[in-house]
C-alpha cells in the first residue's frame, strides 16, 4: 500500500518533485497534487515569452496529462487548498474536498507584491504572475494601451518587453539607479538599459511611484519627484512575497517563508516545503533553479536516502529575446577578488568574470550568454581556473583548447 503524499501547489517545484520521486521512489507514495490554476503545471519562467508572442500557452506546459497519469498522480487543479488539519492529517480544498496525507509538501510559491500606494487598487492595476495575468496583459497590448510597468527586475523587464512586443506603449519605472541591481553591476545594467530601450521600452530610473491617479480606472502615475506619466494600466512587478498563510494557519513555523531545514522539513513533522514559499537558512529564493535542487534533495529524503540541501549559488537568466542577461555568484567582486572585463557596446556584449583564490566566483553576462552554464559550473565546482584565465572570457571552446595545449 502506497503512502499518501500530498503536494499543495501545482507549479514548477511540484512538477520537479514528482519527477524526482518517480526516479528514486516510484510506487512508494500515492501522490496527490492540489493546484488553484485551471490547467496543468507550466513553465512560469516562460510566461513572458507567451506575452511576447514567442511561445504559445500550450507550448509552455511542463508535462502532458499522460505523464502525470503514468506516475499515478492525482491532479486536483482549479482547487485551492484552504486549510491543513495536522491532527486529522488532511488538507481541505475550496471545492470542499478533504485529502488525507501521511506526508505533506507545501509548494505554494509566491505572489506578486502590490505597492501600498494610493490608487493601487484602481481598475487597470495588475500583476504579472500567472497565465491568467498573461491573458489580461495581452488584451491591453492588443488595444495599444499605455502601460506603466513598475519594477526593473527580472519580472518587470520581461513583462515590459512582452507588452511592448505585443503592441503596448510601455514605460518601465524603477526605484533604483540601475536595472536588476541585485544581479547586475552598473555597466551591465547600463548596457541592459540601452538594449531594452532598443526593443521599444521607455525606462525611467530613480523613479519612485507616489500614487496612481484615476477616477475609476488608471489614468496616470505620479512619481515622488512630481513627474506624471499618463497610463491606461499599471503592472506591479516590484517583488514577490512567499505564500505562507496556509502554513501559518496550521501553525507550521514561518518566518518570511516557511522555515525548512537541509532536508526541506518544516518545523512540523511530516510536513515539508520547497520552492519560493520556503525559507532555507534565512533565504527565500525567487528563482527556479534552487527549487529544482530542493526538489531533488526532498525526493531523496522522502525515498529514505541521505540528502541535504545546503543552499544554491544563484544565477539569473533574463529572457528578453535578443537581450541575454546572466548573473551568478559574487558578481559585484567582493574584497580580495579580481575582475576580468569585456565590453563591446555595439555588439551589445558586457562580460565580467570575478576570480578569487584561483577560482571563478562570480559572473555577469549581458548580450552574450553562450557560456553561462559553463561559468556557473565553474563557480559551483570551485575548480582552479589558473590555466584558462587568459581564454575563459572568450568561451569554453577556446579555453578548453588552451588547457589542452
Amino acid at each position, binding site marked *: 500500500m502506497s503512502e499518501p503524499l500530498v503536494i499543495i501547489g501545482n507549479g514548477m517545484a511540484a512538477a520537479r518533485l514528482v519527477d524526482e520521486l518517480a526516479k528514486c521512489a516510484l510506487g512508494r507514495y500515492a501522490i496527490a497534487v492540489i493546484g488553484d490554476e485551471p490547467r496543468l503545471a507550466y513553465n512560469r519562467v516562460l510566461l513572458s515569452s507567451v506575452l511576447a508572442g514567442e511561445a504559445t500557452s500550450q507550448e509552455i506546459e511542463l508535462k502532458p496529462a499522460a505523464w502525470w497519469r503514468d506516475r499515478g498522480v492525482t491532479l486536483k487543479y482549479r482547487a485551492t487548498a484552504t486549510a491543513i488539519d495536522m491532527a486529522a492529517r488532511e488538507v481541505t480544498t475550496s471545492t470542499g474536498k478533504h485529502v488525507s496525507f501521511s506526508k505533506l509538501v507545501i509548494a505554494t510559491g509566491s505572489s506578486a507584491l502590490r505597492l501600498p500606494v494610493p490608487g493601487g487598487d484602481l481598475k487597470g492595476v495588475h500583476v504579472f504572475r500567472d497565465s491568467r495575468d498573461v491573458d489580461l496583459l495581452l488584451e491591453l497590448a492588443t488595444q495599444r494601451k499605455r502601460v506603466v510597468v513598475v519594477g526593473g527586475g527580472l519580472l518587470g523587464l520581461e513583462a515590459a518587453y512582452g507588452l511592448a512586443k505585443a503592441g503596448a506603449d510601455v514605460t518601465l519605472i524603477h526605484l533604483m539607479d540601475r536595472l536588476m541591481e541585485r544581479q547586475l553591476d552598473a555597466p551591465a545594467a547600463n548596457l541592459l538599459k540601452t538594449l531594452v530601450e532598443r526593443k521599444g521600452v521607455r525606462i525611467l530610473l530613480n523613479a519612485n511611484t507616489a500614487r496612481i491617479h484615476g477616477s475609476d480606472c488608471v489614468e496616470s502615475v505620479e512619481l515622488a519627484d512630481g513627474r506624471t506619466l499618463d497610463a491606461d494600466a499599471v503592472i506591479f512587478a516590484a517583488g514577490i512575497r512567499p505564500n505562507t498563510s496556509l502554513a501559518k494557519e496550521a501553525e507550521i513555523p514561518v518566518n518570511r517563508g516557511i522555515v525548512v531545514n537541509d532536508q526541506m522539513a518544516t518545523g512540523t513533522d511530516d510536513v515539508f516545503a520547497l520552492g519560493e514559499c520556503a525559507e532555507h537558512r534565512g533565504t527565500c529564493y525567487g528563482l527556479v533553479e534552487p527549487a529544482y535542487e530542493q526538489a531533488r534533495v526532498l525526493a531523496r529524503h522522502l525515498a529514505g536516502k541521505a540528502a541535504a540541501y545546503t543552499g544554491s549559488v544563484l544565477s539569473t537568466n533574463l529572457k528578453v529575446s535578443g537581450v541575454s542577461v546572466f548573473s551568478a555568484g559574487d558578481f559585484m567582486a567582493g574584497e580580495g577578488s*579580481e*575582475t*576580468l*572585463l*569585456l*565590453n*563591446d*557596446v*555595439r*555588439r551589445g*556584449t558586457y562580460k565580467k568574470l570575478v*576570480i578569487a583564490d584561483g577560482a571563478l566566483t562570480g559572473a555577469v553576462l549581458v548580450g*552574450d550568454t553562450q557560456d553561462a552554464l559553463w561559468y556557473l559550473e565553474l563557480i559551483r565546482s570551485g575548480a582552479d581556473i589558473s590555466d584558462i*584565465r*587568459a*581564454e575563459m*572570457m*572568450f*568561451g569554453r*571552446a*577556446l579555453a578548453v*583548447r*588552451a588547457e589542452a*595545449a
Partner: protein
Amino acid sequence: MNAVDPHLHATRTTCPYCGVGCGVLATPDGNGGAAIAGDPAHPANLGRLCSKGSALGETLSLDERLLHPMMRSDDGEMAQVAWGDALDHVAEGFQKVVAEHGPSAVAFYLSGQLLTEDYYVANKLMKGFLGSANVDTNSRLCMASSVAGHKRAFGADTVPGCYEDLDQADLLVLVGSNAAWCHPVLYQRMLANKQTRGARIVVIDPRRTDTVGDDDLFLGLKPGTDTALFSGLFAYLADNAALDRSYIDEHTSGFDDALVRARTIAGSVVATAKATGLDEIDVATFFQMFKATPRVVTLYSQGVNQSAQGTDKVNAILNCHLATGRIGKPGASPFSLTGQPNAMGGREVGGLANQLAAHMGFTPVDIDRVRRFWKAPHIATHEGLKAVQMFEAIGRGEIRVLWVMGTNPAVSLPDADAVRAALSKLDLFVVSENVRSNDTVNAGAHVLLPALAWGEKSGTVTNSERRVSRQRSFLRAPGEARPDWWALSEVAKRLGYGASFAYTSAAEIFREHAALSAFENNGNRDFDIGGLMKVSDEAFDTMAPVQWPVREGTTKPQARFFADGQFYANDRRARFIAPEAPELRTQVSIERPLRLNTGRVRDQWHTMTRTGLSPRLGQHIPEPFVDIHPDDAAQFGIVDGGHARLTTDYGECVLRVIVSERQQRGMLFAPIHWNDETAGFARVGGLVAPITDPFSGQPENKATPVAIVPAAFTQRGFVLSRIPLEMPFGVQWARVAVTGGVGYLLSDSTDVETWQNWLKPLLGDDAAEYEDVGQGVYRAVSFKDDGIETCLFIGPTEGALSWDAVKELFAAETVSDDQRRTLLSGKSADGAASAGPIVCACFGVGRNTICDAIAAGAGTAAEIGAKLKAGTNCGSCIPELKRLIATSEAEPDQQRKVAAS
C-alpha cells in the same frame, strides 16, 4: 608571387635591390600597382626572383610618398612649394656658398639606387662645373674596398668574371658573404651547380649564416682575420707548387714582396690556424681544395669590404687568384658581389670622391681629358671627401651645402647619431627623396625634392657582372615627382651652365656617358661602352641587357677580363700587393667586452623605405634583434626572446635577443635596417665606430667594441592601425607593414593605464575592450564599418600573444559577429592553429605549417616544397627549412613548442 594576366602588357625592367640585377616583368594593374614576375629572358636571373624582388608589387603604394617639392618655412614647418621656387633656392644656396667659401664647401651624397644617368649628371655638375670632387655615395659603405683593391691590383676597377663562372666553377669560396640572404638568386645558381655538377662550397664568415649548407666547409674565423687566411693560402700555394709561374712572370709584378709578407703574416697551416682561430684541419682542407681545383671562384662581399683593412683583404684574395692565373677564365675568378642595384653604374660614371669620371682618376691627363670632353669651366683637380670624412667635415662646418639623393645617411653611416647632428648644421640641406619622412629628411632638411621611384623612372643600371640593363617606367609619375637628372640640370641652368645640361631624356645622357667612356680610350681603360654612344632613342628603349666592354667597332662580346694578362696599369701588368698584418683598429675592454657585427636580414633592404612597405616581407623577421652566443648570453645575463641594451662609445640601442650557437663567442650581430621611422631605440648605425680603411675610406661596420646588458620589459603587445601612429614615449616598438595597414610590436614597462590613456582618443564610437587588471592585460579594438580600424593588445611579457590571428582579421574587410566575439582573445576562433612566423615569404608559408608538414613525414626541403610550395620560388628559405627538419628530428617536442611560441 602576383599572378600575371597574360592579356596585360608587361614591361621588362630591372629589380631595384641588390647588385645581382635581376630582370623583372612588371605588369601594371591600372590602379597604381603591378604584378611582378622574374624575366626568363634576363641573363642575371633567368626568370627567378628572390623574396624581396617577388614582393615589389607590395611596395608601389603612394601613401608615404613625397609628391611635391617642399621647403622649410620660417616657422620651421615644411611647406609645399613650386618646383621653380625650390630649384631657385637650391641654385642660390650653392652659388652663394661656392662664392663665399669655395667649391670644397659644397657636396653631393648620392646612392647606388640612382640610375646611371642621374649619377652622370650629378657627377658632371659637381666635378666639372661647381669644381669640387665632394661627390660621394652610399656605395662607399658597400664596395669601396673592392674598388680600391681592384685598382691596386688591376690598374682599374674591373670585375674580371661573370655569373656564368658560378655555373662552371668546381669550387665556390664565399668570403664575408651571406649570399643565401643577400644575393639569393646567385646563391641558388651556386646551389644548382653544387647539385648538378658537384661543385664544393666553402663559406668563410665569423657567423654561421644560412649560406652554409650541411655539406659545405665552414670556416668560422675570428673577425678581421681574412687577410691571414688568404696570406696562409698564398704561402701554401707557393710551397706546394700550385703557382702559375708563367702568368706571374709575364703579367704581374710585386710577387716576391707580397709572398714574403704573406709568409710573415701566416706562413703555414699552423700559423694560419692560430691567426684565424680556426682548426688546423679545416684550414688544411680549404688550402688543399683551393690548390687542387683550377676552377675556383672566390666571392666576397661586405664581410671583406666593410673593414678598416678591407682593401688589403681584397688584395689578399686577388693575390691568390693572380698567383694561380685563375682570373677571367671560365669558372675561375675572384668575384666582388655588389650590394646595390647600381653601385657599378656609379663606379662607371665616377660618382665617387676618389674618381673623376668614367674610370678615370685625378691624373693630369685624365683631368684634362674630362675637362675637354665636358667643356668644363671648373674641373675638380683632386679627390673630394669620402662619405665618413664628408659628414665629419659637415660637422666641423667646412661643408655648408649638401644635396642628398636617394639614400638615408642619418641611418646608414657609422656613428649615425653624430651624422644626424652634423646635418642640422648645414646652411642648405637638400634631399631628393621618394618618401616624405625618414631619419635623414627629419634631420633638418631645408628642401625636399620629389624623386621618381622604381617603376616610374627610366634609365640604366649595371649589375655585379658589368651588365647594363634598363630600368623602365611602367607607372605614371605621381604628383610632381621628376627625374633626378632633370632636377640637377635645372639647377645647373640656374647656375649658368644651361648649355652643358640641356638634357631632355635619359637616352641623351646615356649617349654622352657612353661617348665619354670611349673618349680617347684606345683600349687603355677597361670601361668602354663606346659602341652604344650612337644608340637611338628607340634602340635605348628596347636595349637588351648588355655586358661591358662594348667597344666601338667591335661586335664580339667580352664576358671576362684578364685571362690574357692584359691589365690597365701603365705597364699592363697586375700588381701583387703586400697587405698589412691583420689587426682590428679597436680593442675590446672590460667596459666594451664584445664586438658588434652588423649586416642584413633576408627580407629587408637598407633602411626599409621600400621593403618596409611590404606585409609579406615584414613577416620573416619583424623586429630589430641582436644575435648572441649562448655562453656570452649566460655570462651577461641575456635571455633568449628578451631584450638587451647595447652600448658602444658612439650610441645605444635596445634590441630583441636571439641566443644562437650560429653566432661565435665574443661577437654580437645586429641588422642595420631599423631606424627611427621603423623602430624605437634601434638605430644600429648609431653604434658603429666611424673608423675607415686608409685606401678605400670604407668604414669598419662589423667590429665595434660593445657592451650588452639585459633590458627587461614587463609588458609585450602590439598595435594594428590603418594609419601610422606615434607610440607613447619610452616604449620599445618596431613598425611592421601588415595587410591593410601598419603594425607595431611593443615592449614596455609602463602600466595599463598609460596605454588606455594613449588609446582613448583613437577609440571611436564603436569599440570593444577587454581587461584583466590583475594580470596587467588590456586589449581594445576600434571598429569602422564592421572592420577593425585600430587595435591594441598589451599584457605581461610572459606568455605574450602572437598577433597572427588578429592580423588576419585586421586584413579582412569585415569581421563577422562570431569573429568579433573572440577577437579580443587574440586567438584564432576557428580552431585552426596559427601558421606561425612566415618562413617562405614568396608563398607565405608559416613555420607552424611547415613543422606540421615535417611531423607528417616531409623529410627534405624538396618534400616540403612539393607539399606546401615553400622554398620552390626564390629558394632562400631552404636553409631554414632544413634547419626546421633537423631540429624536429633532434627534439620533436621542443620544436613544436618553439613553433607555437
